[in-house]
């Protein structure tokens, strides 16, 4: 390939183009790059508002401290467990919801509303609602157990049950986002494929495994990656439901960051923890970007 020479007119247009990009770049720098740079800078500082006389540069000391901190690892473990449980959970439930919404209903709005309502609800509200569901003495879940003659369970102060209760709330809340993404994917599948399958006498499950699922894979990957990133940042629902309890049993990394900075006022260490969380999110995002690149390469 030979490179074409750029004329003066095109050069001026290029300059104009760059100039027009400048406001967008400045905005991004202000709301993305500057906060990240400040976070990284703070993470190298000893900055504890209750001990201002100790402030100063400490290099990577805060990161070393994190690696030796049991609580960092336990909150990492909890976060990983939330990812492992709630990502597949939300995808399975979301897929079911999407297929339900994709059925040819005569009245569409109740299904659409059911799909959108959990998504539109603020996370903390969802957490508070589910906290009441699982409340020991007045909750609806224990009331149902009671109706079946079972003993009430301490949902929010037994570690395994608290994890199940918070995970159910997260799956309920996030499955509608997954369903919206998958619904778009479902509607892109040509109806002719199903018609051909019907002619061949295929059953519902044969159509699901041979047509729906393979055609839905790109949408599923996108939904899963977005869900994974939000699962890594899990905060609101466990915060509202258990406050991280009992003990530290449901404390996530984001909750530990919040506690370190906002409760304890240890901004330096909290920033290091946040930077580590950012690193994990970034690596997942890079998997996503890599996947899109590969798609573009093969698909066209």
């Amino acid at each position: 390939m030979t490179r074409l020479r750029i004329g003066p007119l095109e050069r001026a247009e290029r300059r104009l183009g760059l100039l027009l990009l400048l406001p967008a770049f400045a905005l991004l720098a202000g709301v993305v790059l500057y906060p990240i740079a400040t976070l990284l800078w703070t993470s190298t500082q000893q900055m504890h508002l209750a001990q201002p006389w100790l402030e100063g540069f400490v290099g990577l000391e805060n990161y070393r401290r994190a690696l030796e901190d049991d609580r960092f690892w336990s909150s990492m473990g909890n976060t990983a467990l939330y990812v492992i449980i709630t990502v597949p959970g939300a995808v399975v439930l979301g897929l079911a919801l999407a297929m339900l919404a994709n059925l040819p209903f005569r009245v569409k709005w109740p299904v659409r509303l059911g799909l959108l309502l959990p998504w539109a609800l603020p996370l903390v509200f969802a957490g508070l609602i589910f906290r009441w569901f699982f409340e020991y003495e007045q909750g609806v879940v224990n009331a149902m157990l009671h109706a079946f003659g079972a003993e009430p369970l301490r949902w929010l102060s037994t570690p395994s049950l608290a994890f199940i209760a918070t995970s159910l709330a997260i799956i309920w809340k996030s499955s509608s986002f997954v369903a919206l993404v998958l619904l778009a994917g479902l509607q892109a599948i040509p109806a002719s494929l199903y018609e051909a399958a019907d002619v061949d006498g295929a059953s519902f499950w044969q159509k699901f495994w041979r047509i729906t699922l393979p055609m839905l894979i790109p949408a599923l990957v996108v939904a899963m990656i977005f869900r994974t990133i939000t699962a890594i940042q899990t905060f609101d629902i466990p915060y509202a439901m258990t406050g991280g309890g009992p003990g530290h049993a449901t404390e996530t990394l984001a909750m530990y960051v919040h506690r370190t900075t906002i409760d304890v006022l240890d901004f330096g260490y909290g920033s290091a923890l946040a930077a580590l969380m950012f690193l994990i999110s970034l690596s997942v995002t890079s998997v996503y970007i890599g996947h899109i690149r590969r798609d573009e390469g093969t698909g066209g």
Partner: protein
Amino acid sequence: MTSPLTLRRRALLAAATVPLAATAAPAQAQAPITLRIFTGGQQRPDVMRRILDVYQARNPGIRAEVEVGGATSDQQQQYLNTVLASRDPTLDIALIDVIRPAQWSAARWAEPLDAYLGAQRDAVMARYLPAYREANIVGGRVIALPYFADAQFLYYRRDLLEKHNIAPPRSWDELSAAARTVLAAEGAANPNLRGFSTAGAPIEGTVCTFLVPLWGQGGSLTDAQGRLALDPAQARRALSLWADLRAQNVTPANLAEIVTDRIRVDMQAGNLLFAMQWGYAWNRFQNDPDSQVKGRIGVVPLPAFAGNAAATCIGGWQLAVSAFGRNKAAAVDLVRFLSSPEVSKMQAIMASHLPVFPEVYEDAEVLAANPWFRDARPVVIGARARPVTPRYPEVSETIRTAMNGFLAGTRTADQVLADLTQRLGPVLR
């Protein structure tokens, strides 16, 4: 030494400017100063509003606004942490928990009041109960002024104890026995009735759930220098008190989910026999329209271990002037009014807030509204302080999380002890 001078200078300045202002234009009189006070939802903002209305009527140049924050001490401080860490000037005064002045002093969020109090400083401070004088002076500087006192008491259902001929318990053993007797007899009539409740969720109040039985056997968390000095045997005994009460079905099964105001709600609904609770609850039991227990509640000092003196956590709320406010002098004047015997009496009558002045406990009108205040004064005077350190949030977080795990049955006493020594050792030294 400089403060009387500045005061005099200010007075001279005021005297010099008044005739000028008067001759200029009366219509252009000084614009009213608006002061913004932060308080918690549980500290009766409605009562503060009525008190501020009195102040506004006397000081036409001042308008005072109340901003109501979260329900718990921790939630309130979380909000204040973000406001003050960003040096926001919109708050002039904040009502803070008795455990906070050291942190506020270290972070330089509170305007020290010594210069404003001037020569009167020692005389002003001498009028308060000693514990509150000490709690608000950090490193020799007055960081805040007390608004109301508090301590934990044992609330009990007088009607139920009288029915079963039981005297209010003085020891934990007596409490457990009384609860089991009453529950066995009343369980059929009210299956929701529980024996005893205290804070167990991972919140500030749960720190006292650990400290009260520790202190109640002569133990201590820190030594005189503020270093960690936890005796393992005493700590184990404190923890086993809660384990035993749970095993005897005296405390609710979900104690690890109980927050402070939930105890008040349960008792108010008639579902609780005994409660370890702060002073504010009395007024709610007596006066709330939905209270099922009006006139049926008694208050006594908390039980002790047999052979020991009872102990209780000191509580109470202080008024700090923000270092970032724009009208600090006016804010200090308002704080001095809010921290006066007059307002202490108003709060005692309207909200059963315990007074910070010893003489207000003797006041006839106060005693008419709160007959139990006569016995409350020695309890408040004998109440003990949680560790005083600027790093108190870390101390609190460690204790309440460990306790919450213990009460939920996920941490053993040995694990709790290990958590406390490992984590508090580097902070309390």
